Structures are given as structure tokens and as C-alpha cells.
């Protein structure tokens, strides 16, 4: 016997019996254990297996790749979300502000469009009408023309 057992020999000798069944025939099982050690004995086997099968690739590489992918997805989602929010909240705002400025300038505007600075129609509730109008510019222009026509007719 060699004084320094090889890795495989040492490992085989360390085997402990399983606990899921008592030995039915200790002598036979001991003999089979020796047979198993002989069958497993292959000089240099473990070294050749290690040379052929290197250690698995480090798991952190997969994790880093996954995190990078998640970061890219989060960035893309945030950009898309910002665009959607912008479309929802930013689109009506200029229209609303312009309509409001028109409403504030309503008496002067109506007078000028009517061609006379005497046609001040402070008493007419144009403001409420304008507020209820469609915010579309073409519709607003039509409405203003109607208002001017009304104002002209009133004169």
C-alpha cells in the first residue's frame, strides 16, 4: 500500500455507510466496497477530468450581465414613461394658456376685430363661451369670427 493515498483512493476510503438502511450482510457489503474501490481506481483520473472540465464560469458574471440588462430595461421604461407623461400633460397646456390670454384680452380683441374701438362688449359673457369652446385653434378662430360677426351685427 502507498503511504500517501491518492485523492481518489482517499475519497473512497472516507465513504461512510448510508443511514437509510442497515447492512443486510456486512461481509458481502465489505467485499463489494473493496470491489468498488478497485473499479474506481484509475491513476490520474481526477486530474484528467479537471483538465477536461474546468470549474464552472463564475456566477457573478451572469449576475452583472443580468443587472446591466435590468438597468437598460429600467432606463428604457423611464424614457418611455416620460414621453407618455409629456404627451398627456403637456399637449393641452399651450392651448389652454393661449385661450386664457385671449379671454383676458377679450374686449380689446373683439373691438379691434370689429373695426371699431367703440364696440366694447364687457357685458357679453364671451369669457364663459370661450371657456366652453373646443381648444382646437381652428375651432377657436371660427368662434372668434362668429363673435365678431355678432358684435358687428349688434352695432
Amino acid at each position: 500500500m502507498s503511504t500517501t493515498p491518492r485523492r481518489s483512493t482517499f475519497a473512497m476510503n472516507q465513504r461512510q455507510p448510508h443511514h437509510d438502511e442497515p447492512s443486510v450482510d456486512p461481509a458481502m457489503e465489505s467485499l463489494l466496497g473493496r470491489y468498488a474501490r478497485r473499479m474506481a481506481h484509475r491513476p490520474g483520473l481526477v486530474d484528467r477530468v479537471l483538465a477536461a472540465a474546468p470549474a464552472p464560469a463564475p456566477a457573478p458574471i451572469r449576475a452583472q450581465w443580468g443587472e446591466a440588462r435590468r438597468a437598460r430595461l429600467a432606463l428604457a421604461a423611464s424614457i418611455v414613461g416620460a414621453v407618455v407623461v409629456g404627451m398627456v400633460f403637456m399637449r393641452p397646456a399651450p392651448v389652454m394658456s393661449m385661450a386664457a390670454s385671449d379671454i383676458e384680452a377679450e374686449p380689446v380683441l373683439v373691438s379691434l376685430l370689429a373695426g371699431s374701438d367703440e364696440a366694447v362688449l364687457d357685458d357679453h359673457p364671451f369669457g364663459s363661451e370661450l371657456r366652453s369652446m373646443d381648444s382646437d385653434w381652428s375651432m377657436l378662430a371660427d368662434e372668434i369670427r362668429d363673435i365678431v360677426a355678432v358684435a358687428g351685427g349688434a352695432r
Partner: protein
Amino acid sequence: MQDLPAGHLEQLIRDAARGDGEAWERLVGAFAPRVFALLLARCRDPDLAEELTQSVFVSVSGKLAGYRDVGRFRSWLFQIAMNRLRDEVRRRGRHARPAGGAEDLEAVAGSAEADYQDLSPEALGALGAAMGGLSDAERQLVHLRHLAGMSYQEIADLHGEPVGTLLARHHRAIAKMRQAMEDSGFTPEDLQ
């Protein structure tokens, strides 16, 4: 094969899957001899058995990061080994001959080094003859139990058979082998 405690084995697997080279070496050192012994017993060709053993661990190395079936590593490993052997046998278009018979074991004994002669050729011959008298199912069970070092529960997981059935079959196989050896003039106690 080194029988690692369950928790230790699982820790070793986790470490190896994370790329710990030392853990991988310990895992291979613990299981490669068993895989080789099982494959050698099934194909009776030491070179093919080693080639397949290397192939099995190449496969395990690639799949270990995805291994999630905690507590069933041996079943998983030896299933890969048996599948690899079956594929190779199919590829070569011939049947693997299970070990058994004096000539097989004597051939193995002839390949062993002089300092590892813990069984005489006569004892090997008697054991081979006894193993040759087993049915294929009994012989495979003996191989998985004693060469692969699997527990009955692991073999049950591998084959999908109840543990009780395996216990009864193993008991019967051992009794048949003892009887065959005694018929040829050997008693296991004499060979200790």
C-alpha cells in the same frame, strides 16, 4: 467516494457554481471515481469509461449554475452519466455489456497497480461469477448502490421506484451473490 454531509455537499455545489476552483476540485475528486466505476461496470471499457466520465463533468460544469434541485445532486449526476453512456452505446450501435463474470473483474484487476491489490484474482473471479448470476435489474442496483455510492432514496429518485422495492431487491441480490460465492468455495468472511 467521499460521502459528504448533505449540508456540506450543497455548500460545495454552491461554491463550485460560483466559480470556486477549489470547491470544484473537491467535487470532482469526490465524485469522478464513482462515476468512472459505475460507467466501467456498465461498459467494461476503461478508456471509454474515462472518456465518458470527462464528458459527464464537462456537462456538469456547464449546468451547475442552473442546478436547483437541492438534495438530489447524486441522482442528477448519475442520471447524466447513465444518459451519456446510453447515448454513446446508441451512437456506436452496440449494446453495453454489464460487468459480471470472472473475466471482467480479472481484466480490471490486471489494470490495477501492484500496490492496490486488495482483492486476489480468485476472490475477484468468485465475485464476478456471483455478480454474473444476478438479473440486470439486480446488477444495476448493486452497481448504483456500491459503485456509485448512492443511497436507496437517491436510487429511488433516479428510477422512480419505491424504496421498499429497492430494499427487497438489494437484499435478494446480496443473498444470491453470497450463495453463489459459497457454492464456488469462497465465503465473504474468508476474504476479509
